[in-house]
Structures are given as C-alpha cells and as structure tokens.
C-alpha cells in the first residue's frame, strides 16, 4: 500500500492516483455506485416531468416559456466546464498541481455562470409568465427537475471550491487526489444530466 506520507514526485506519482490507496479505491467505487443511484433519482424526476409536461392548467406552456438562445448559452457554459475539469484531471495525472488548480477554478467560474443564467431564467419565468412552482403541475415538475439539477450544480461549486481552497497550500497528495477525481466525476455527471434536461425539457418542450 502506498504510504500517504511518502514524498511524492512526478516520477513516483502513480498513473491512477485516484485509486492508488485503498481509501482512494473505495472512494472511487463508492462514488460510482452513488452515481448509479443518482441516475434513478433523476430518472424519477424526468419521468414525472414527462408525465406532466402538458399539464399547464391554463397557465404558460413550455412552448410559450422557453427560449433557444438562453438555453443554448447555458448549455455551452456547462459543456465547456466539463472539458475544463477534464483538463484539471489531465494535469493531476501529470502531477502538475498548479495547473490542476487553475483549471478547477475555471470550471467553477463556468459553473457559476451557468447558475447565474439559471437564476435569471427562473426569475424571468416567475415575473413575466407568472409561471411558478405552484401555478400548475407543469410548473411543479419543471422547477423540481431543473431546480434539483441546479442544486447539484450549486453543491458541486461549493464542494470544488472547498477543495481548491483547502488544498491550495498543501499540494497534491494521494490523500486528496481521489477527492479531486471524484469531484470531477460528479461534475461530469451533472453535465450528463443537463444534456438530458436541455434535450427533454427544453428542446422537446419547444417542439411541443
């Protein structure tokens, strides 16, 4: 077993740092399992949304609400943040802590941008269409699904920010490498969910 306290260099840094210790391996496995569960969680929300997507109860319908440029911008931000977190992992494997931190920070900023757009969007719906979480079953399903995703984004931002700050002065180790790795997995998963959200909620909603 690799000793956590060993002095690490680019040479002896393992190829898969996230799985180099037993703790890391457990974290890695456990997190993938968790993502399996999350899949079902989001599927339940998607399914509910699909069942209620036409239940606008006389209020705003999806066709009236959604607007392509906004969704497209949000999508681009989040997709790009997925790539930047891949860059971070790339630098982690190369034992380049500084660059890894930098790309993680970029990821957070992009995610923040996404979140701001989403908040703006919700605010817009509420004020211009009187479309709220209580106004119709569609509203409930929409805000719950998209909002749950948004909460995941927000949580991910807090999590990654904590990681960045906490480890800023300690450098990369086999103790925190799995943490970064798992956080980036989480971030990708958020992106996966978003791909379905923009397709099923927004694009399908515009088609009608």
């Amino acid at each position, binding site marked *: 077993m690799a000793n956590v306290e060993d002095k690490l260099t680019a040479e002896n840094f393992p190829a898969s740092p996230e799985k180099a210790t037993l703790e890391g391996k457990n974290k890695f496995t456990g997190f993938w399992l968790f993502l399996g569960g999350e899949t079902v969680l989001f599927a339940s929300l998607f399914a509910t949304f699909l069942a*209620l997507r036409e*239940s606008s109860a006389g209020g705003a319908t999806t066709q009236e609400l959604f607007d392509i440029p906004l969704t497209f911008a949000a999508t681009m931000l989040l997709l790009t943040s997925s790539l930047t977190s891949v860059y971070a992992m790339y630098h982690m494997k190369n034992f380049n802590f500084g660059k890894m931190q930098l790309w993680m920070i970029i990821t957070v900023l992009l995610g923040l941008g996404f979140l701001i757009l989403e908040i703006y969007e919700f605010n817009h719906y509420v004020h211009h269409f009187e479309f709220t979480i209580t106004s119709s079953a569609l509203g409930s399903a929409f805000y719950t699904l998209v909002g749950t995703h948004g909460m995941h984004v927000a949580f991910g931002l807090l999590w990654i920010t*904590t990681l960045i700050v906490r480890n800023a002065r300690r450098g990369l180790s086999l103790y925190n490498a799995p943490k970064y790795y798992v956080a980036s997995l989480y971030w990708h998963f958020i992106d996966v969910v978003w791909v379905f959200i923009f397709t099923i909620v927004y694009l399908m909603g515009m088609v009608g």
Partner: protein
Amino acid sequence: MSTLTQKKGVGAVLWDYLTTVDHKKIAILYLIAGGFFFLVGGLEALLIRIQLAIPNNDFVSAGVYNEILTMHGTTMIFLAAMPLLFALMNAVVPLQIGARDVAFPFLNSLGFWLFFFGGVFLNLSWFLGGAPDAGWTSYASLAIQSEGHGVDFYLLGLQVSGLGTLIAGINFLATIINMRAPGMTYMRMPLFTWTTFVASALILFAFPALTVGLALLMFDRLFGTAFFDAGLGGNTVIYEHLFWIFGHPEVYILVLPAFGIFSDILPVFSRKRLFGYSSMVFATVLIGFLGFMVWAHHMFTTGLGPIANAIFAVATMAIAVPTGIKIFNWLFTIWGGSIKFTSPMLWSVAFIPSFVMGGVTGVMLAAAAADYQYHDTYFVVAHFHYVIVGGVVFSLFAGTVYWWPKMFGKMLNEFLNKVTFVLFFIGFHLTFFIQHFLGLWGMPRRIFTFLPGQGLDMANFVSTVGAFFMAAATIILLINIIYTSIKGEKVGDDPWGDGRTLEWAVASPPAEYNFKQTPLVRGLDALWVEKMAGNKGMTPAEPLGDIHMPNGSILPFIMSLGLFVASFGLLYREDYGWAFPLIIVGFIITFGAMFFRSIIDDHGYHIHKEDLLKEEKGGKA
C-alpha cells in the same frame, strides 16, 4: 486508542458508542434500535388485533386505528426489519469476507444515525399531535387531505432515515467489491454476503424513487406544489408508481438477506455444503433483477388497462422460478445431511414451508384478473405476513440467535430459544392462516372495525389469539437476553462447532481489527476447507504488521442531529415563528459538520505490531 476492553464508566461507554465507526459496534447499535422499534411495531400490531378481536369494537377510535395501522407497517418495514438485517450484515459480512473493516467506516456510522434520528422523528408524532394515518403506502390523495402534521412526520422521518439506508447500502457494496481477502473470489462468497450485496444494490436503485416520491408529496403538502393536485393538472397515479417502483424492490431488500441467513445456517447444522451454490447465486441476482419489473402488480385495480396488467402479471409470476430454485436447493442441502436441531436450525427449517405458503399466495395475487378480488383485502395481509414474518422475521430470529455468540461472546439459552420458537411458530400460523379466508370472505384491509352478521367474527377472534402467542414468544426472548447477559458463559471462536465461514475463525466477540493477519481463502466455506484439511485455523495471507484503523468521530451523530432539527423546522414552518430559523440552524449544523469533515484530515491511526504481539501473549487465554 481503546484496544483493550477495560471497565469503563457509563459516560465513556456512551461516548464510545456515539462516536464509534467500528462495524461491530454499529451492528450492536442497529440491533438495539431495530429491536426497540420491533417491539413498538409489535405493540401496535397487538393493538390492531385487539381492536379487531370482536365486531364493532371501540377499543380505539377510527382515526387512531388508522394511525396505529400506518405506524405499524412503517415501523416494521423501515425501522425494524431493515435495521435488524443491517445489524446482522454489519456484524457478519466484513468478517465473512475476511476484511478488517468496511469501506466507509465514517459513512457507516452516519447511516446508522440518520436512520435512528429519522425513526425517532417519525415516532415523536405520537406525542406531537398525532401520527400519520394514510397507510404505510401514504397514497397521494389521502395523504394530501390528511389533516394535522402526521403525514409530514412520515415524509420527513422517512426521508432522513431513507438517506441513512442508502448510505448503508453503498457502504456494503463498496465493502464487498473492494475489501475481500485474498482468494475470496465472488464465487466463494458466503450466501449471506451475496444476498447483502444484491440487496444493497436494490437499495441503491430503489430508494431514490422513494426519495423522489416522498419529496414530491412533501412539496405538495408543505409548499403547495401541484404534482398531485388534479385541479392544476397533477396526477395522483404518479405517486403510486413512484412508491411501488421503490416498494416492490423493498420487499426483496428484506427477503434476500433473509434467504442469505438461512443459506448460511442450513449447511452448518446439516454439516453439508450448500446444494447448488452457483444456482443460488444466480437465483439471487435474478430475483433482484426481476424485482424491478413488476411493481405495477400492486396497482392492478388502479385502471392501467389490460395490456399493462397482463404484462406485469406475467413478469411477476416469473419470480416464482428463481425462488423455487432456492427452495429446492435448501431442501437438498439438508437431504443427506446430519441435521442438528439447534434453535437457529429450527427457525430455518420452519421457514421453508412457511415461506412457500406465502410465496404461492403471491403468485395467486399476481393473477391480475383474480387480484381484482384479492386486492386490498385480508388475503393480501395474509400473503405478506406469511412472507415477511415467515421469511424475514424468522430469519431475524435465526440470525440473531446464531450470531449472538459471535457478537456478544455468550450463547443464548437454548431451552428458552426453543420455547420462543414453538410459541411464535404456533402464533404465527394461527394469526395469519385464517386471514386468507377473511379476505376471500369479503373483509377489506385497513378497516378499523367490522359489523356483526357478515361471517367474519370467529376468524378475526382466532387471529387475535394468535398474535398473543407471538407476543409471549417475544417476551421470552427478552427474558432470555437479560438472563444471558447476566448469567451466560463465555464461548470460544466457533461455539456451534460446525462453523464453515470466516466469521467463526476469529474470537467471539472479534477484536476491533477483526483479523490480526488477513486470511488466505482457499475455497467456498473457507473455514470448513481448513478444518477438513486438518488445519486449526485460517492460513494468513500476509505477515503480521501494523494495522491501520479509522478514528472514531462524533460528526455523524451531529450531522444527523442537524437534519433532525431542520425537519422540525420544516414541519412547523407555517405554525410558529421559531420554525423557520430552526430550518436554518439545522442545516448549518449538518453542513457545518460536513464542512469540518472535509477540511479536517483524518488519517486514522495504527495499531502497532508490537502491541499485537503483546496482546497475543498477555491479553487472551
């Protein structure tokens, strides 16, 4: 750290248990909490049966009856049966795979405390204005109309404890995937480990659906959303689906570990290896898989249409096949064996015909067109108590008695065990057999009373008498436990004499690190293999060295407490001014604890080789 079991003060013991991350101690916590909730649920069952003993009884009022009924089902399933199974899993599974620990000791403790606080929260409803009263299924239309906070207690309590269950499931999965000793391949794992594995996978995929179902209902009740509000386009049938997408796998989450327990006990007391090991594994996985494709059999009368009903009927019946494979494998395990009727063995053999009775009525229920008659009658009540009590509760009794010496180092009194068995067995059949007929004679379930002159009086009375037999049996077990803890004698590593699996290769109770040296596994029934080869114990797979242990922590307790507090805030959000701040306080506690957890490095500690050697010489006889 506390390697040696010194005499400690009450406070120290309490602190030890509050902060423990040792799976063996967490097992004891689960056993105590789950056992307590079993008594509570059993007491509620007795109240149900007293109320229904005679027609037009007014022992409890209609509203209170519905509360008792709901709490009985909810408590038994979520707070008694599952936690008690977790107790045995925690106590045994790491040992069975030759692991020093579970994959996530910290999360293991968090899982327990979430369950515990969720359960306490739910039961506090009794004292805070009334318990939930919409049935354990809490169907949306009734649950939304239900007045007071009962249903809110249900929703929040289950949400919190469900989170704990999910965490426990992930922990067992990761443990079994990553922590097996050298040589312990998947196809050498004892069946209890296998069934824990599959049941945990079911937890992983089923509980999120419950989480969503409960959340939507909670939003409707607390925040006025419209998922189930038909006036705004909502649809209550969605809730039914979400509940049963969770609910059906849930019954296999309960029964698969039970199957595992019997699969471990039967070989030991017939001194024969499990017949058809690989088909047992296959059947377990298949049941788990099919378990996700049948949920709508609880909704045959909802009006899904004949196509859906027919598909789900056929899919449901298919589960009889792998289950049958198991039944016959068990029978042929004892066939040709040398059976010793210890009390765990009595429970195990009694399980076989009892469970088959329950299983076959399940297949009858699966016949959609006929289920229009059975549905929501006592026939269903009879079915599921036959499988749950005859399967799960029997296994809990069997497993608890069987592993008691491993957990506590003392053997329960066998005579009293057998008295418990006989009384419970009689009471069980007396109570539930006749309920099949009650259902067929036209008695709906969930009724607080029935009128005379409908031909239901006598059978209901018989059923009530049976329940008291079960109560007597349970009380005798309690006496036995007290008696044993005072008088019982210490036992060795393998007190039953014929142990086959790894847990019997270590001390009773095991040292905190389980295995001083990780064992080398050379076949199915690892210990038996060594015994047959004439070895005294397991061959170690590694030289003696320092053992890495995790640190205890109070944070899991605090995180759970935070959610407990926040739940009260959410519940009383509209009633009291202090409630809203309470939500925030609760979340700050929880997230604060999470924050500390993530910024404080916890590398654990080591038990040094020298200390291990010293202990070997001095500590033990």
